[in-house]
């Protein structure tokens, strides 16, 4: 859906002479990224409003985007599967944020987040065959992922002790979701490597 839309928009710009043929590929890629980011941000806002936790949803989305972009992880094979999985994971995450407002399970959340931090620390960054990383990039993105992980973890610890729930739960959920995606991505890669060997 988004890919078709970005291709159509690019071709429209090309036919009007706003861009050159050389820029076509760049525009399709760039527009895909732009529309996707806007779409999922809007989705997070809508579900945030529906679940009555608008600010927490935005904090979750921003924190998740930061760690996700550098740590990487699981990617769906098709765009449709991505749209379904992304929407479901946003709903599930905002659902947990909503539940944390009703029930007090902060200590459990903190413990699961601790496990997630360890997983992210060792598994990041996990690239994809569509965008493989060079050795230099791998080292660079690992460092950035660790810095972001440290920043989010510090926010979680401070907000836990000072009871800033508006920051605590969204940051925890973003790290938990990222660790799940990293583990899923790692399993997928090992499985693919085994299939190639056989």
């Amino acid at each position, binding site marked *: 859906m988004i890919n078709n839309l970005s291709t159509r928009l690019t071709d429209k710009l090309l036919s009007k002479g706003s861009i050159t043929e050389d820029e076509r590929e760049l525009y399709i890629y760039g527009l*895909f990224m732009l529309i996707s980011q806007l779409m999922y941000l809007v989705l997070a806002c809508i579900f945030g409003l529906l679940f009555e936790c608008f600010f927490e949803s935005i904090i979750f989305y921003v924190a998740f985007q930061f760690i996700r972009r550098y740590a990487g992880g699981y990617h769906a094979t098709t765009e449709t599967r991505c749209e379904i999985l992304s929407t479901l994971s946003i709903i599930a995450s905002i659902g947990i944020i909503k539940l944390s407002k009703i029930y007090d399970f902060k200590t459990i959340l903190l413990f699961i987040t601790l496990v997630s931090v360890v997983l992210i620390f060792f598994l990041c960054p996990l690239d994809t065959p569509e965008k493989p990383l*060079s050795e230099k990039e791998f080292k660079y993105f690992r460092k950035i992922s660790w810095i972001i992980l440290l920043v989010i973890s510090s926010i979680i610890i401070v907000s836990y002790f000072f009871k800033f729930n508006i920051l605590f739960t969204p940051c925890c959920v973003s790290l938990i979701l990222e660790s799940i995606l990293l583990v899923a991505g790692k399993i997928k890669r090992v499985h693919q490597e085994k299939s190639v060997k056989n």
Partner: protein
Amino acid sequence: MKKTCFNNALNSCVKAITKSCINSTTSGFMFQPKTPASLKKFSKVENDK
């Protein structure tokens, strides 16, 4: 005039987002489109001497 402004804004937006995406491990969502080889010119790490 309006169209030129819109095109310029879109152009800047697309270039900025492409640069930012090429300088990250993956996209922020669960689908990573194949990255065009020509975009490697935007990679800070690769072009850093």
